[in-house]
């Protein structure tokens, strides 16, 4: 399972970075979204992957999922969502104001 998650994070990051390097705002936006998916998955895995155990610990249990990364991921998702929404609005505004969707403004 570790390998699967690692490959998923890698593929998401790779495609995200590729899209980030495009010159139009929409692919860049998609790239950032993919990158934030990768980050969330990575953060989730940073508490170790645990299968088939209680969601909370009890004294005596030696295998339990770490609750902290779940809280971190939740925060990261919310913040990432807000930032993406802002960038969408900003990109649309740039399209209107500069007359193009190039990341440097205008139509190149």
């Amino acid at each position, binding site marked *: 399972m570790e390998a699967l998650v690692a490959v998923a994070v890698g593929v998401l990051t790779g495609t995200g970075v590729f899209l*980030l390097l495009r010159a139009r705002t929409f692919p860049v936006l998609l790239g950032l979204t993919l990158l934030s998916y990768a*980050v969330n998955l*990575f953060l989730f895995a940073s508490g170790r992957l645990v299968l088939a155990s209680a969601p909370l610990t009890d004294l005596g249990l030696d295998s339990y999922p770490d609750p902290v*990364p779940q809280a*971190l991921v939740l925060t*990261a998702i919310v913040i990432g969502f807000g930032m993406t929404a*802002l*960038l969408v609005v*900003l*990109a649309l505004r740039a399209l209107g104001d500069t007359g193009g969707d190039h990341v440097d403004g205008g139509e190149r």
Partner: protein
Amino acid sequence: MTHLVILPILLPLVAGSVLLFGARLAQGARRALAFAATLALLPVALLLLERVHDGTQLVYALGDWAPPFGIVLVADRLAVVMLLLTAVVGVASLLYAAAGDDARGPQYHALFQFQLLGINGAFLTGDLFNLFVFFEVLLIASYALLLHGLGARRVAAAIHVVVLNLIGSALFLFAVGTLYGVTGTLNLADLARVMPLLGPDVAPLARSGALLLLGVFALKAALLPLGFWLPRAYAAATGATAALFAVLTKVGVYAVLRIYPLVFGEGAGEVANVAAAWVPPVALLTLAFGALGVLAAQTLRSMAGWMVVYSVGTLLVAVGLFTEAGYAAAVFYMAHSTLAIAAVFLLADLVAGQRATAGDRLDVADAIPHRVLLGGLFLITAVTVAGLPPLSGFVGKLMVLEAAQLAPGAVVNWSVLLIAALVVIVAVARAGSALFWRTVPGPADAATPRPDARAVGAVAGLLACLVGLVAWGGAATSFAWSTAGQLADPSGYVTAVLGPDAAAREQRRSLR
């Protein structure tokens, strides 16, 4: 436990929320509320300063959850000095904005408060993840403030800033995840405690996490090669906003100064001094490039933007020594450069407003009206930023040079610092003569309205603080030295947060 520690976060939070929902209030009422909330940060910071002056480190556990499980705020000398600087710059830029900038778009005052909330939170937090959260708060407010007043130039600059900082946030989270995966904690004091215990098998992971984090802070602080976005974006912002942004880059420097000596310092075992090989060369490059940028700038605003890069370079030369003398120089220079650069941005805006045709371009143009007033302000500012005696820039630069003298590579550090300083002096002198001397006769003083008293007052207030930094130079430098002493001895911070007995925490870790 004193509740004073959380006030610098609560005050702007409450004021910002009220302002957000009070959008229908008259402009005067919003201004008064925003100004009162910002002004109140000054006494709070001063009270905190009085409390931490003797070396106390105030720890505030939110919800009284004991660290390292809960969230903590830590106010020590460095954090409080940064809070005080933020309050001073905040008051000055709000005063300047009240001269008219704040009416150019809706919700300026609410955004300004949220910006202060993010900055103050970043200085106070004792936790890596909350540092991320407060970074995001200050960033999202800064995006909106940058766009304030709109226009194609601002929108295009904002796209770069937003995309770059979103990439930075993703990297920050990767670093946080890596460090959490290795150590099982995000509390800075707890990280400092666990770091020396790491075995050689996981140490490379911790190192990569630490360096990834350094990359993120370098992006926030606009270090080369990640700093090219800054001059354009800051030059596009309105004057008052850009002045507040002078604190923003310092947040990145603060994070380096806070985290690397504490968590990855001398005593960190396998990951000790992880940043020491990277910070000095990058800082020197940034310094040199910043000075060239100042020389090459065509407008006063972009010159101020490059001065930010230049000052961050100087600061990190001092920080990158990772010695007590280096930290002391960094703390003093931080205070000086934040105030000075805020003054430059405000002054650039003031000058641009007075020159009808040329704006802030450094060209031959009609003689500037009110040149005695503006020229006088420019002279003091220029002397300060160029690091000439007798003002604080000189003291700061001297401290950096002295600190660098004791460290290896002193020849390189000294040459780059001194040549860059000379370049900046030339650039500032050239800008001054272009603005005030190389002119054709223009409209008489009486024909143009005097600059707004609030705007002039904001610049003069900042300059007065800079003069105060020299007039009470003995107290300021000795405070910088005691701050450096606190930074150089991380055990004090760890004990303050975790308590003298950290053994109880072992139980949890053994469960992992």
